[in-house]
């Protein structure tokens, strides 16, 4: 089909009236008025109404049009005309015109659809009910149909626009896009790797990159100065609703730069891409240290679209008689609180005490919560009588309390627990009380993270071990010193979500070595895992730093999509499974054998395979009956008899005879006159009387502990 003379459906306007056009696309919807047939024809550009009428369309074409059904792929030639008065459809951009068909070519017929694709109504005013109840797995299984929907097309086109903007902008800034390997070795990001077996090196594996971290640093050593890449990364992490096993990130690294350069560059980039979604971001982006973020919001990615930030109240209670606070302060703890402005009507005593203090806040890990409602006459609470007059006054002042406010405080010996629990409480209340304004975007740089976090033994990197510390005069063996170090790392946070993050890197081999020491990595382990990288630092590595941005997440935020799966053409579902291709799948044992994986793990058998050696073990496994060693001889005897019995039977039987499974005929009868119903014993719960374990109206199986 020649396409040079094809017009785009969605671009026809009143000005085109009278033109002869050729269109191609899919039948979005049909309306049959007997002699006259209207269809909505859809291509990527939009929708136009096409009319088949005996007055203007040849009869043969009308006959062919009668065969049309939703989602047939067709080519139509016709004339654009203005719609008759009163038949305009303001719901579509081409609503003032229609095309009178002169010729029709059916390019592809469409089978019965698994779900409705059309999103536009054929008549003005009537909205097409797009069933959001269409199961996501069904959509993913027929993703090629789901992608025909204008919303999905719009998402992918906008995504393209965003990525192109990034490329163009970075190109302007002198960045070069360089590809790095997908088949590489395990990198130190900390999540599990996806492994790819090597046929040439049996029982050896490539790892898919969790990020191109080391390669981009090597590109800096390699003198590329400014590198970026829109790159796919892979992490085998636990399932989360909004997580994909593979995701796209903008990865960027530059030499001879500092934080200020990266802030400027990235703010400009962020502003440009949000503009594509019609979102104007104010510049410069505010900055907040990690310490301040924790102290004021209890989160390292604060959502600052609303207030309710923390006040510290520790100093108000240094002399307190209230036993719980007193004990906590004696143990070096702290007390922080928030003022839920004007919420006393919605947060009753009952809600505060029974829901929040007893259920919700303990769920955040805190042992308790202190609540006070601010009344005209002072504070109302179940514990306020334990507070001195000065303490009550101090609270009112500290929280700038007015009648109608609710003050919530959490006290604990652990500073971080107070912060995180109160932070979750802050978010919980913001959602419950609807305090988060829609359409507001609050970008923020969070800086000065701790370089290390305390671990069971020693410390671990909070970011990754290549991050430059704020000072270099530390003792790798002194845990207290290590925990006091700050990193030269920065996260770009928006509306409580981390969009990206990066750091200035270490370019000194000695320093890098000491960081590894601090992490407790032995020389051999370092040499084995990072030897090639440390070596590279010996050859005049430039100072450098970079950042990475999660593209899926950013695009979803810009487009206001409900999940990142809405902005990915072929995503996995929430279980990291692809309903379209049915991946992951088993492979032929021939493939495994070729890869030397059949006997992988030496003596360590694959699950269930251990039973294969001994026939007794096999049968114990398939019939799930465990046996003790003393039982073995009896079972071995029984099996020997069974073998002999089966042989005798096999010898006697003749294949000409039909097997008789039952001695008398039974009609395959259903219970007559009975409707499907819930059994009364199930309905009244008696069914559970004999259950060894029941939980919430279900039989409880064993917990999975391994």
């Amino acid at each position, binding site marked *: 089909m020649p396409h040079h003379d094809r017009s785009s459906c969605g671009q026809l306007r009143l000005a085109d009236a009278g033109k002869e056009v050729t269109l191609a696309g899919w039948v979005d919807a049909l309306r049959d008025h007997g002699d006259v047939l209207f269809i909505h024809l859809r291509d990527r550009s939009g929708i136009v109404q096409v009319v088949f009428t005996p007055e203007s369309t040849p009869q043969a074409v009308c006959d062919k049009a009668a065969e049309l059904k939703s989602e047939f792929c067709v080519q139509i030639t016709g004339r654009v005309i203005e719609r008759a008065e009163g038949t305009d459809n303001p719901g579509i951009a081409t609503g003032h015109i229609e095309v009178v068909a002169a010729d029709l070519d059916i390019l592809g017929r469409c089978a019965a659809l698994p779900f409705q694709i059309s999103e536009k109504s054929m008549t003005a005013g009537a909205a097409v009910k797009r069933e959001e109840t269409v199961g996501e797995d069904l959509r993913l299984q027929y993703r090629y149909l789901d992608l025909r929907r204008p919303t999905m097309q719009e998402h992918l086109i906008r995504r393209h626009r965003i990525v192109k903007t990034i490329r163009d902008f970075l190109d302007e800034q002198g960045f070069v896009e360089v590809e790095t390997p997908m088949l590489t070795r395990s990198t130190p990001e900390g999540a599990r790797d996806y492994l790819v077996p090597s046929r040439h090196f049996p029982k050896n594996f490539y790892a898919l990159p969790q990020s191109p971290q080391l390669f981009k640093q090597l590109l800096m050593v390699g003198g590329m100065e400014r590198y970026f890449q829109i790159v796919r990364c892979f992490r085998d992490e636990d399932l989360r609703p909004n997580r994909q096993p593979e995701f796209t990130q903008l990865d960027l690294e530059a030499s001879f730069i500092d934080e200020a350069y990266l802030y400027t560059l990235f703010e400009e980039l962020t502003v440009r891409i949000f503009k594509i979604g019609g979102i104007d971001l104010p510049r410069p982006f505010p900055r907040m240290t990690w310490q301040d973020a924790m102290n004021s919001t209890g989160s390292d990615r604060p959502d600052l679209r609303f207030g309710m930030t923390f006040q510290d109240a520790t100093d108000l209670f240094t002399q307190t008689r209230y036993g719980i606070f007193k004990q906590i302060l004696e143990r070096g703890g702290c007390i922080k609180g928030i003022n839920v402005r004007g919420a006393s009507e919605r947060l009753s005593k009952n809600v505060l005490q029974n829901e929040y203090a007893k259920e919700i806040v303990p769920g955040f890990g805190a042992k308790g919560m202190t609540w006070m409602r601010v009344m005209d006459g002072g504070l109302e609470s179940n514990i306020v009588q334990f507070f001195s007059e000065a303490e009550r006054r101090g609270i009112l002042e500290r929280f700038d309390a007015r009648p109608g406010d609710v003050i919530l405080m959490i006290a604990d010996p652990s500073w971080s627990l107070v912060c995180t629990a109160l932070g979750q409480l802050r978010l919980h209340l913001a959602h419950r009380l609807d305090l988060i304004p829609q359409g507001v975007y609050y970008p923020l740089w969070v800086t000065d993270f701790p370089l290390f976090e305390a671990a069971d033994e020693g410390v671990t990197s909070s970011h990754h071990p290549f991050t430059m510390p704020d000072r270099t005069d530390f003792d790798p063996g002194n845990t207290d010193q290590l925990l006091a170090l700050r990193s030269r790392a920065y996260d770009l946070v928006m509306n409580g979500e981390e969009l990206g993050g990066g750091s200035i890197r270490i370019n000194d081999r000695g320093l890098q070595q000491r960081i590894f020491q601090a992490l407790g990595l032995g020389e051999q382990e370092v040499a084995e895992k990072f030897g090639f990288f440390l070596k590279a630092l010996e050859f005049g590595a430039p100072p450098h730093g970079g950042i990475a941005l999660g593209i899926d997440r950013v695009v979803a935020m810009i487009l206001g999509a409900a999940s990142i799966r809405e902005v990915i053409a072929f995503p996995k579902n929430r279980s990291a499974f692809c309903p379209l291709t049915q991946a992951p799948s088993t492979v032929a044992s021939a493939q495994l054998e070729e890869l030397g994986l059949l006997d992988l793990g030496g003596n360590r058998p694959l699950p269930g395979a251990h039973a294969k050696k001994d*026939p*007794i073990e*096999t*049968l*114990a*496994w*398939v*019939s*799930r*009956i*465990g*046996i*003790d060693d003393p*039982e073995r001889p*009896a*079972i071995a005897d*029984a*099996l020997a*008899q*069974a*073998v002999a*019995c*089966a*042989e*005798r*039977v*096999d010898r*006697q*039987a*003749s*294949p000409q*005879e*039909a*097997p*008789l*499974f*039952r*001695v*008398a*005929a*039974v*009609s395959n009868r*259903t*219970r007559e006159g*009975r409707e499907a119903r819930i059994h009364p*014993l199930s309905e009244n719960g*008696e*069914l559970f*009387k*004999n*259950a*060894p*374990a029941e939980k919430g109206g279900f*039989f*409880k*199986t*064993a917990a*999975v*502990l*391994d």
Partner: protein
Amino acid sequence: MPEVFTYRNDSPSRITPEGTLAGLRVAVQPNLAVRGWPCDAGSRALSGYTALQDATVIARLVRAGAVLSGSSRMAELGFGLTGDTSARTVVDGHADVALITDTMGEVRLAAAGAGLFGLKPTYGLVSRHGLAGLVPSMESIGLAGADPGRIAETLAVMAGADPDDPSMPDDCTAGFSAVPPSGTGSLTAGVIEENLTRLDPEERLVFDVGVARLEAAGVAIQTVNLADYGLFQDVHHLIAAVEASSSAGKFDGVRYGHRSAVGKNWNDMYLNTRAESFGSLIKPFLFQGAYFQFERYAAFENACRLRGRLVRAVDDLLGQVDLIVLPTRRPASDPKRAATIQATYAAFALTLPASVTGHPALQVPNPGLAAAQDTGLQLIGRRLDDGRLLAIGQHLSFAAREGR
């Protein structure tokens, strides 16, 4: 000696019962559901299980005025008679009729060992709804008692269509009439030659006495041949083991019964639960069933082919004669003490044929002999000819009482 009952009904209804079975005392095995009674089928796999509703037969018996006296001991899951006390409930005077599930001949052997009548009804005649069974294609709820007339009346109440038992064969839905077919005259019974040659002289002697009683009752005796007589045991064994393995699959410790305290995941929980659930006789049998199912499925199909051949052969014989006569038991082997599968099958060798083919079989005692010596007389009839067997039993019973 252990208590005869595992559960004793201490508060039978005080209301004077009415109905065709008014006042008849019936003992059951703990594999039959009686609402509120323990129902563990003699197995740890169902330990602690309390029945939530009555089995169809129980509901029918109670409605007809029968009084449930209690629940006896039974072999684990009804495989054999090891530890079974069901017939003793009648012998000791606690019950008039005992319901004993017959999978390989349990009701017939229990009755024979106790000098009682024992009927394995035609396969399918009695609803199995509410029975914790083991071998669905063979088991029948049997009846043991001293009076064949009472057995017939009881069976008449128990039998017949049950919408809750969709496995009931089409020919069984009409039920069973307690009115005996008239007379024993002009009947012919076949004695199987291949069986006779396997009896030792003492058994032969006792059996011949029984056959003579039949003859005295006017039944003509004829020797018949069943060339494949030797196949019954293997066919029964192979099919029963496969079905038992499947039936026992439901004992997983989730919905009921014993559940192991240890297990770090589902599979572990199942393995441990089922390791602890099954005893030393049934566990090897379940392994045999698993072996046939998973490793020798063709042999299972072949066993079913042979079963077809055996059913046709017995039907052919029952075309020539009205009933087949076998001894019920070999006095030398005590099924109650059988500790291995082999010993169990040896003890039940004579009752397996009717279990394989589904024909009705009645054990008839010889009151002139000590129960320990009696081989019993096993009458096998045509399908649904249970009434004729009981009528012959009744006749022999009267004759014995009159000293004929």
